[in-house]
């Protein structure tokens, strides 16, 4: 149950966004993707999810080339939570979560009790059962993110790809979402801005700079003062935390 990218490059409008990235994410791990804005994190995630086709290289899901798989087969395995899911349509929370069952249905197949059970379980997992009939667009940013996560879980995926899921959330909900993702028994790839949250919740980290993956490994190996200075251009002090045992980054003036 692993996802492996081999030397993938993706360009848009003549501009190279992802360049020669090779990466393997192991079964069950939570993999964090770091890097400044515009370093190619979102694009790399889209390529890994099969939403963009790389100009060179390939992405393999358990050894099978993603390009050779039908969209529906991919969607039963990989679920995506976008940075900003928005709609003008007055759709309710439960209807959004039900969208997650789309890849499991053909044109003629009907809705089943099993579908209902999976949707309810996903909704309960993000603790939003009481909001089921509320219109999606009236929710707060954190609640919308949780609804999208529930929709992704309703896909019953083996892989979850999240693009900065904690953006615009208050700290309580940032911790909640990441704890939830980490506890899931599936493989997750998460783009994050906050180095300390990444260190706390991810098993391994990858660092993007100008479209390239320049570091990959355990948080304590990847997060160093030298790397932070090189990639983010700021001075920092990195040391193990006395409270949770993972490394902790303190920025310096």
């Amino acid at each position, binding site marked *: 149950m692993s996802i492996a990218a081999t030397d993938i490059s993706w360009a848009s409008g003549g501009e190279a966004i992802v360049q020669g990235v090779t990466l393997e994410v192991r079964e069950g791990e939570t993999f964090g993707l770091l890097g400044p804005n515009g370093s190619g994190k979102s694009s790399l995630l889209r390529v890994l999810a099969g939403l963009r086709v790389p100009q060179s290289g390939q992405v393999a899901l358990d050894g099978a080339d993603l390009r050779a798989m039908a*969209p529906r087969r991919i969607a039963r395995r990989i679920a995506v939570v976008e940075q900003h899911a928005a*709609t003008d349509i*007055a759709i309710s929370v439960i209807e959004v979560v039900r969208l*997650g069952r*789309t890849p499991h249905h053909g044109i003629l197949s009907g809705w089943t009790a099993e579908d209902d059970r999976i949707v309810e379980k996903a909704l309960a997992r993000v603790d939003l059962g009481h909001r089921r009939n509320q219109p999606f667009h009236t929710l707060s940013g954190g609640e919308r993110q949780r609804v999208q996560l529930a929709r992704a879980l309703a896909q019953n995926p083996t892989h979850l790809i999240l693009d900065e899921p904690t953006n615009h959330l208050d700290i309580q909900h940032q911790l909640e979402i990441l704890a939830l993702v980490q506890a899931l028994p599936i493989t997750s790839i998460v783009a994050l801005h906050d180095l300390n949250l990444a260190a706390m919740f991810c098993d391994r980290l990858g660092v993007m700079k100008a479209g390239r993956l320049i570091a990959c490994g355990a948080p304590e190996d990847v997060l160093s003062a030298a790397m932070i200075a090189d990639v983010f251009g700021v001075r920092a002090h990195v040391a193990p935390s006395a409270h949770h045992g993972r490394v902790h980054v303190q920025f310096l003036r």
Partner: protein
Amino acid sequence: MSGLRLLVGAAAVLSALLVAIALAVGIGEMPIAPATTLAAVTNRIGLTEIPLRRIEEAVIWDYRLSRALLAALCGAGLALSGAILQSLLRNPLAEPYVLGISAGASTGAVSVMLLGLGAGTVTLSLGAFAGALVAFVFVILLAGTGQAADRTILAGVAASQLFNALTSWIVSTSADAEQVRSVMFWLLGSFAGVRWPDVWLASGVVAAGLAVCIAHARALDAFTFGEDAARSLGIDVRRVRAVLLAVTALMTATMVSIVGAIGFVGLVIPHAARFVVGPGHRRLLPATALTGALFMVLADIASRLVIAPQILPVGVVTALVGVPFFSVILYRARRAA
């Protein structure tokens, strides 16, 4: 909304549609009672043998019933096209008329009519279809397929202007006075002179279109959060978009080729239906088609009653209802932005 209430609602709209059709058949220089219309229909399909006046039966069968049925089909087809475009382009203002697709179809049909390429129902439809398709491609290329609602509408305005200008050019250089009058009336929409072959063509296209659209109901739901979201739910976005845009173009083009460009039905009806049955396309699409049919039959009745015995172009009636509605949506969209 529960399944039972939904069924009752659907039955109510369907009965209203049948009553409206019976009323529409009754209106004209020779008023005909709804009971006579019913008897004429049951006689024809062999259920009854009620004696009727020959002339009344002839008026019902040769003029009025085909007209009323075509109005219903036209309303269903245009409303359905609007619903599909709004979902696919994620734009509450999208519909064939606003996007200039009706204008393109008009240009195609007028070209065929006036440039002497033949004037049968089939050639006219093919001309309108080609025109609609050209306008469609024009709008999609100009707007891109991104999320920008404004660009789509702007591209539609450009398409409307362009194709209306081309139509005027063709009309003013090729037509004589008599042709100009008939073309102009036709461009505002008219159910006059509709015959049974038109009805068969329209019913085939609408039935096929409705079937294809309903088969894609789940895929359309998946577009709620945009194209990437649809793709990540396993939708073959390119294929679905191509199929549904082609179906929309076909339905619009067929309607325009028969009755001219009728605006705002595709805009108003899907919103009204969404308000009642919600955004899920399995309910929304049939509800839209049914409501559109009812609305158009009523609009046709109004067009014949308002300045009787003269007839108002039906496009005028739909615009008089549609524009205020359009304004409300614009206003709400501005507040939401």
